[in-house]
């Protein structure tokens, strides 16, 4: 079990807690500074998951809630790698996703948008990366949906993504957007991120090479988690 420190998180790259155009951040952002904490075992360990925790169908949103047929919508394959900042794959880590259906409606008791529920679509999936850090999902492309921020705000099509890594301090939740969506540039949640390059990194690219002809189109989305420091001199460096 390695307990090497992590690279410092770049808090100018991530969104700040307080981003007033995203209104609900205003009362939910700490006003005092975060306390910087050098990592101990509490931060450098984290939960692990195995194939006993999930079922093989869990990564197939076309099938994992199908009742009477397939969900309606644009069939997509979503795939990519989980890497760390040094470019090393993160194997056997849990990736979880959730999303609205093709019409922008979530299967959640708190969602009251008038677009209908799809009886064959749940909207969540999970998988473990393989030994090379690869993951794959099959789903339908989610629709945009309106939300109560400004009077006329619409979220771009997006899929929520949750990843663990090997350390509790690597824990990350983000959102994936789709190449070419004109709503991305207008979204106050996207724009909580100050650096356009960080936004671009959240936009999944159309990947024709990974499509299944006459079946599903594909998007590629790589995820980067914090990297681990080498312990030069103290132990044998494990390479950067």
């Amino acid at each position, binding site marked *: 079990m390695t307990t090497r420190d992590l690279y410092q998180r770049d808090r100018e790259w991530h969104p700040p807690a307080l981003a007033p155009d995203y209104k609900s951040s205003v009362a939910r952002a700490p006003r005092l500074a975060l306390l910087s904490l050098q990592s101990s075992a509490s931060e450098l360990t984290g939960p692990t998951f195995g194939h006993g925790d999930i079922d093989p169908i869990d990564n197939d949103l076309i099938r994992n809630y199908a009742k009477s047929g397939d969900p309606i919508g644009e069939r997509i394959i979503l795939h990519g790698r989980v890497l760390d900042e040094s470019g090393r794959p993160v194997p056997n880590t849990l990736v979880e996703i959730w999303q609205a259906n093709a019409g922008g409606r979530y299967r959640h008791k708190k969602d009251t948008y008038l677009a209908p529920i799809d009886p064959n679509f749940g909207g969540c999936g999970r998988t473990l990366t393989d030994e090379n850090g690869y993951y794959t999902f099959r789903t339908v492309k989610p629709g945009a949906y309106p939300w109560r921020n400004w009077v006329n705000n619409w979220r771009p099509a997006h899929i929520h993504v949750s990843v663990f890594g090997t350390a509790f301090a690597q824990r990350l939740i983000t959102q994936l957007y789709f190449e070419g969506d004109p709503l991305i540039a207008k979204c106050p949640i996207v724009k*909580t991120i100050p650096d356009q390059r960080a936004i671009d990194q959240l936009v999944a690219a159309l990947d024709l090479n990974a499509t299944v002809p006459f079946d599903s189109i594909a998007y590629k989305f790589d995820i980067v988690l914090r990297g681990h420091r080498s312990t030069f001199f103290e132990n044998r460096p494990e390479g950067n």
Partner: protein
Amino acid sequence: MVQALNYLKETASQTAGPYVHIGLAPGDAGFDIYARELGRDITGPNALGKRITVTGRVIDGTGAPVKDVLIEVWQANAKGVYPGSGDVEDGFRGWGRVIPDFGTGAYSFETVKPGAVQGRNDRPMAPHLNLWLVARGINIGLNTRMYFDDEETANAADPVLNLIEQTHRRNTLIARAEGNTYHFDIRLQGDGETVFFDL
């Protein structure tokens, strides 16, 4: 110019949004899809140590409970060992997901009281739970810790609590015992604001 370092940048965080339960706790969103929902049982049946209940609320800057928060817990077992870094009881995961009641915002979970863990430079840390909060309006998950008010001596020597310059703020991380129940409110902003960490 100099050589490029060629590190990748970490994927930027985004809010988990109000419907986080769909992905991470679909039963709470209102539908059953997975044979096994993850994070429902922190300790497993074989865990040693004192069985405890932790309860409280997450409160926003207006004083209102945050009813759509999701909290993840990460803790050592009663002997101070984290799963993956030593032997723990069969079934002890040390990790869990906690969702408050949608109506009241009150959360509650069962676990065992963790033992002391070695911190940096082999200094022991007082027993604590590591907590990570995500919700609508929270752009990047918030890290905090919960300590126990019946561990006064250990808390006084804890290297992390002692980093908090304003000593009265240390109390924001200490849960109040009432029998085997510990009360722990988390205040995101304003009076009594909980200490959050940059890890």
